[in-house]
């Protein structure tokens, strides 16, 4: 077995030191009836690297990859071009095979990266501080709702109809068990987001208002207006960003008054990966720092006075506070945070803005091409790189028919909202800097054919 260095001679010598006759004897504490005498029957034995690679390559080939066809899917996961150096750097063994930096003297590499990552996220979101990452956007969103409950000591969260339905479902699961109340709504196919409706649902029990920016249909809420209304009622505004590239051309949620900003970092550095691992981003006002979930890296000095970094404020965390911790999270998304940080370093503010503008322009071209098809209408008045179209028939069937023509055309709202009949004929379509004019022409042609 290529991964196991011990030889039989080593094993014998070691057993002699231990005073045991065999490895099986070391398992004497396991009750005899639960001890398996041999490898589990019916499972295959070990395999060579070549054989495993061949098996996995066969499975890999049985998928339509985004890069191989015209591709327009978004709804919380976006395909951007990731520079080659990102993947090279995250595969350095010193990053890839390190642990959580519990021993800072020999983990300054990871710690400095986390400090830089926290600063990048805070600047991108327009918040005062940010943490060292959570699992993904959906779990970060629930953590923010729970945190707002701790801060305001209120138990009702108002969720915008534009919040990603998987995020709503994740919060619903948790709220069912924690006793928090969620005031939810399904999205409506209107040109502008539900800002006024959200504001109307705020009351004196409301701990927070959760608004996605841009929202699930691609519309762009006026966060400043919602922030003032929420704060006037003693509630916090939680802004949710599922496409951080948008902040290259849109005002940051923090600058518009959001108290907590969470997001999905996948679109920078991480890639699609069929949904995970992704990267939970979390920023907020500095005064809430002791209510933050997850790890934090802070600057300090060593015994010689040299600048260095450590994990800090761990009295919030499960390994110290146990049942009184702010969250149960332990392992987070360290390597994805590194990838995000490297990609953002390569881009810089100027590069991020350019990438965002190109993504928006590609979406505009796509929208224009689709709107020209009889029976197709663009819903949004404004959008970043994703917009919603209505079709003359069930969008689930249309999406499958497009896939049969080797076009991945969008995400049907029927799949995201199976119980909302009124959304069944709508589809969200996303474009990025990767989208070409040929892709757009192919989508338009295929859609025309499917709808004909």
């Amino acid at each position, binding site marked *: 077995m290529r991964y196991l260095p011990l*030889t039989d001679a080593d094993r014998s010598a*070691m057993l002699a030191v231990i005073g045991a006759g065999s490895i099986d004897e*070391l*398992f004497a504490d396991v009750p005899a009836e*639960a001890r398996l005498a041999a490898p589990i029957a019916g*499972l295959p*034995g070990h395999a060579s690297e070549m054989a*495993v690679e061949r098996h*996995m390559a066969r*499975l890999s080939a049985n*998928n339509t990859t985004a890069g191989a066809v015209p*591709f327009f*899917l978004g*709804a919380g996961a976006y395909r951007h071009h990731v520079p080659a150096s990102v993947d090279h750097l995250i595969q350095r*063994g010193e*990053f890839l*095979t*390190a*642990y959580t930096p519990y021993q800072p003297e*020999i983990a300054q590499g990871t710690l400095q*990266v986390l400090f*830089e990552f926290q600063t990048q996220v805070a600047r991108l979101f327009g918040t005062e501080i940010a943490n060292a990452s959570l699992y993904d956007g959906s779990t970060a969103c629930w953590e923010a709702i729970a945190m707002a409950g701790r801060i305001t000591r209120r138990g009702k969260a108002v969720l915008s109809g534009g919040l990603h339905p*998987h995020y709503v*479902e*994740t919060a619903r699961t948790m709220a069912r068990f*924690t006793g928090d109340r969620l005031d939810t709504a399904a999205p409506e196919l209107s040109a502008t987001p539900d800002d006024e409706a959200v504001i109307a649902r705020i009351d004196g029990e409301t701990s927070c208002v959760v608004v996605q920016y841009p929202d699930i249909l691609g519309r762009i809420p006026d966060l400043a207006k919602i922030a003032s209304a929420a704060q006037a009622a003693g509630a916090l505004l939680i802004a949710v960003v599922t496409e951080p590239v948008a902040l290259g*051309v849109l005002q*940051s949620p923090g600058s*518009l008054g959001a108290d907590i900003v969470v997001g999905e970092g996948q679109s920078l550095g991480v890639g699609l*990966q*069929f949904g*995970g*691992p992704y990267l939970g981003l979390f920023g907020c006002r*500095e005064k809430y720092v002791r209510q933050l979930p997850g790890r934090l890296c*802070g600057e*300090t000095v060593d*015994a010689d*006075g040299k600048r260095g*970094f450590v994990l800090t404020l761990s009295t919030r965390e499960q390994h110290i*506070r*146990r049942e009184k911790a702010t969250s149960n999270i*332990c*392992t987070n998304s*360290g*390597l994805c945070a590194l990838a995000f940080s490297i990609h953002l*370093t*390569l*881009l*810089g503010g*100027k*590069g991020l803005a350019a990438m965002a*503008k190109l993504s928006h322009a590609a979406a505009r071209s796509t929208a224009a091409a689709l709107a020209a098809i009889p029976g197709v209408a663009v819903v949004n*008045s*404004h959008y*970043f790189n994703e917009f919603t179209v209505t079709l003359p028939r069930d969008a689930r069937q249309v999406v*499958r028919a497009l*896939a049969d023509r080797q076009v*991945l055309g969008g995400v049907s709202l*029927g*799949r995201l909202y199976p119980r909302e009949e009124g959304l069944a004929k709508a589809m969200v379509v996303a474009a990025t800097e990767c989208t070409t004019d040929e892709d757009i022409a192919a989508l338009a042609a295929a859609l025309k054919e499917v709808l004909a």
Partner: protein
Amino acid sequence: MNVINPAGWRPAMGENVPGTPVQTFTGNRALQLEEALLFELGSADRSGVDFPATDTLDLAGLGPMARSDIPDLPGLSEPETVRHYTRLSRQNYAIDLGLFPLGSCTMKHNPRLDEKVARMPGFADVHPLQPVQTVQGALGVINELAQWLIELTGMHGVAMSPKAGAHGELCGLLCIRAALEAKGDPRDVILVPESAHGTNPATAAFAGFKVENIPATDEGRVDTAALIARLGPDVAGVMITNPNTCGLFERDLKVIADAVHAAGGYVYCDGANFNAIVGRVRPGDLGVDAMHINLHKTFSTPHGGGGPGSGPVVLSEALAPFGPLPFTARQADGSIRLIEEEQAHEDHPQAFGRMCAFHGQMGMFTRALAYILSHGADGLRQVSGDAVLNANYVLRSLDDVLDAPFGNAGHCMHEALFSDDGFAEGFSTLDLAKGLIDEGYHPMTVYFPLVVHGAMLVEPTETESKAGIDQFIGAMRSLAQRARAGDELLKSAPHLAPRRRLDETLAARRPRLVYREG
């Protein structure tokens, strides 16, 4: 004057005196290189990515929320970026550099085939919401891994979506909660042994339960009598780690499970240490109802400096109907269905809901499956055998110089536990751990489990050679003797790392969590 590090530490170029460390202008020490912060190096108008011109693009479609300025994010060219992160990487210890005996964390070799496989385009470049007919191979990976996890644990079903161990714990407890609610039997107490990982009580509280601690015996195991005595109509379940955090197998788990079931509760097993028994013991045979498996421990997906992990939860027949969405099912024609919200009401009506967006940690599934297929059933059995052999070898090679509090309780499992008993006055576990850094090792887990004074938990794993372990034992013996003798130099260790001991009190008293100029 150090121009690339203007706001950071400015090394004073002291006098070079014979017999003292040589002072350098840069602060670098040959291959040990200082690195400034990104914010001291980069600027918002610099970039390592080329794009077509954007000046003429019409941005009116963005509407009133558009920004007029550029985000305040420093950029670097590609060569500067590669150098920045490469230099930072060299300030880290890692498995690739040497033995990483962090108990309970299972720092074993990460096979590079698994990295290659995870990057195959059919896994890395597919969107989670593509039509299922276009992702049959990716769903096949999830389904095949799920089958392996079920077979290896002797359980009934598996929830694949939890994103890490603690998230898996939450999944298991929510299944228990949902099962009790379905029976109309709400209970609100979870029993947790005091030796448990901190995530156990934190998760139970996060899921809305009250937590009660169960003491350990002098032998380092759960006090079975105390646990059984506490069972009653308010107890929803117990969370037990097996093998436990003292590195011992909980011999009574089946007895405990039978008693918990008889009292109407459920058994959650923290599977963080499943690597010690994989291929030799199936938790399903011990009466476990739910157990998470850290793919980043047992099946060696890389830890990445703090994640991502992956924590699928295997479930008993009693809990499987309540597992979260989504999951996969192979159909008669061989194709694989994805059961999510759209189909749940027919196929999985009792699901407690969704734990996260999309389908879980696909990138970890591909790596774990490649790892499992490489080892096979026979190799996995050898994995647990060698891991336990290495730990016992460490235990018996050190128990004459370090106190092993449960050394007489029989063989240990995959990790060896020591205490600071016998150190000279004023010398602590921390001093020995920091001394290990100077010897070129990452320290073991320290001060955990809490039931042992000055605990040192050493997990060598199965991917270390005997020669490598012998050298580590030599270093440990030397350090143990220095701690017993009261060698003052140990108290200021490490002396040779990129940084000396860091002021954690300062960091917490005056938190600086982001870079600010000046």
